[in-house]
């Protein structure tokens, strides 16, 4: 499989990365080089093989559903590019 210019634009938008028109063909070439490389996996017989979902066999650990942290709004906001009155500030979403 390989990607065309439109697909590159669509992936970039899905990934929320702005890509300039003059970067498209270069990016298309690089993505297709990687896709050509991974193409060899098509040769592997994976019939009746379970996908790996856990690296080490272990049951998911659980803990009581209680509050263990919090009341640190100032710390949470400290690295934000824009805040106001204890909230994250973003460009207007709803008109």
């Amino acid at each position, binding site marked *: 499989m390989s990607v065309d210019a439109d697909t590159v634009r669509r992936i*970039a938008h899905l990934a929320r990365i702005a890509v300039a028109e003059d970067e498209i063909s270069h990016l298309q070439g690089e993505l297709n080089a990687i896709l050509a490389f*991974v193409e060899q996996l098509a040769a592997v017989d994976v019939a009746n093989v379970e996908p790996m979902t856990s690296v080490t066999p272990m049951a998911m650990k659980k803990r009581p559903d209680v509050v263990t942290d919090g009341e640190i709004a100032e710390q949470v906001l400290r690295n934000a*590019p824009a805040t106001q009155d204890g909230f994250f500030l973003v460009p207007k979403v709803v008109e």
Partner: protein
Amino acid sequence: MTELTDLTIAQARDLLRNRKISAAELAEAHVAAVEGARALNAFVEETPQSARAMAKAADARLANGTAGPLEGIPLGVKDLFCTRDVRTTAASRILENFVPTYESTVTSNLWRDGAVMLGKLNNDEFAMGSSNETSFFGPVVSPWRRKGSNQDIVPGGSSGGSAAAVAARLCLGATGTDTGGSIRQPAAYSGIVGIKPTYGRCSRWGIVAFASSLDQAGPFARTVTDAAILLRSMAGHDPKDTTSVDRAVPDYEAAVGRSIKGMKVGIPKEYRVDGMGADVEALWQRGADWLKESGAEIVAVSLPHTRYALPAYYIVAPAEASSNLARYDGVRYGLREPGRDVIDMYEHTRAAGFGKEVRRRIMIGTYVLSAGYYDAYYLRAQKVRTLIKRDFEQCFAQGVAAILTPTTPSAAFAVGEKSSADPVEMYLNDVFTVTVNMAGLPGLSVPGGLDASGLPLGLQLIGQPFEEETLFALASVIERAAGAFTPEPWWSASGQA
């Protein structure tokens, strides 16, 4: 007496405990070495003030008998580990001004045991790279050079700053992370020891995430014993990481020098790849001979799915990265670029904040997870991963205790030498190391010798899950036979490193 920066961790520990040297003077010698080696670009943030304060506290504990196992030992920290009140960037522009309000579990463990922080070490952006050339802060230059050449060589990656700093004697040890070989490959390129422990052995909490099912922290050091000492402090159960294993941490140091008599060591025929240098091939044979002379039994083994590990990795790792890096949206932390609306702001922030290798991997990951392609790529890669892991399990079931391979197919290359249009050329550096991450196994790289041009080569030992002690025992045999390798300190004005 030898230079303080030439000491091993084990030697420094004994001298500190016997009060022959102070933590303050040891820290001072390393602070000076770091300042004198800026030409290597190994550090992205030097923290001499914390180093002095931590050393002072260490001296107090050494005096009153409450010293920890790493008391007064100066270390460097890969800039992927969050450090409280010390800028943590993952070597990315998007985190250029990020100052964590918390400390990663692994570094907390090191400070708990008395270690001293010298600063934060350069790496490939978000650990995506094999040469430390994708860093926003510029490439790290290896302390090693080819014989008769002054061309800059890469230290390997992604933990290139860690490897260069330890090899150049700027710190006694350093932390790294390994997703596809990012500890073992730079350790091999820099002539030092590095171990990626079993997945789950070290907590991932507070480490900037790349590919969560593959990422694992581990140490760099100049000797096998030192790596064992560091791993013991770094490892351990952490309730904040659900994949962290609740299992006692052994005294790894005690395994160094342990007999390997009768131990079965496998040589996988699939690792004899095209393009492997004659020096590498010869070293691999020498490594097997050294182990045999010490009583190990060398057996031929087969890992038939080896060749599929790298392509499967380049689906799984970007897929997980595209998901993990979705958090960098210009809202909660990091860079923000203005936009017409919120989506436009996201797109411009991420375009400006991520470098080209990171953007490329996020896009590949987004593509292989997108509707209509998930089964063909991601699901298939996860099945191939099962087969890769099965290969190792079948090998271990035949009584094989560990597997010996070269760490890389060749020695390090020059800065800028592999910047062609085809990203796959760079990926091939990791052909011998990614299999280990795909299977979640422990892997250690130990220096084996120099190639014809005078650059270091490493041997990799792959072990059964949680059998790091076996790797330390085998590696110490190789270390004894091969000796240690030290670069000439060309970067230091005084000629002393």
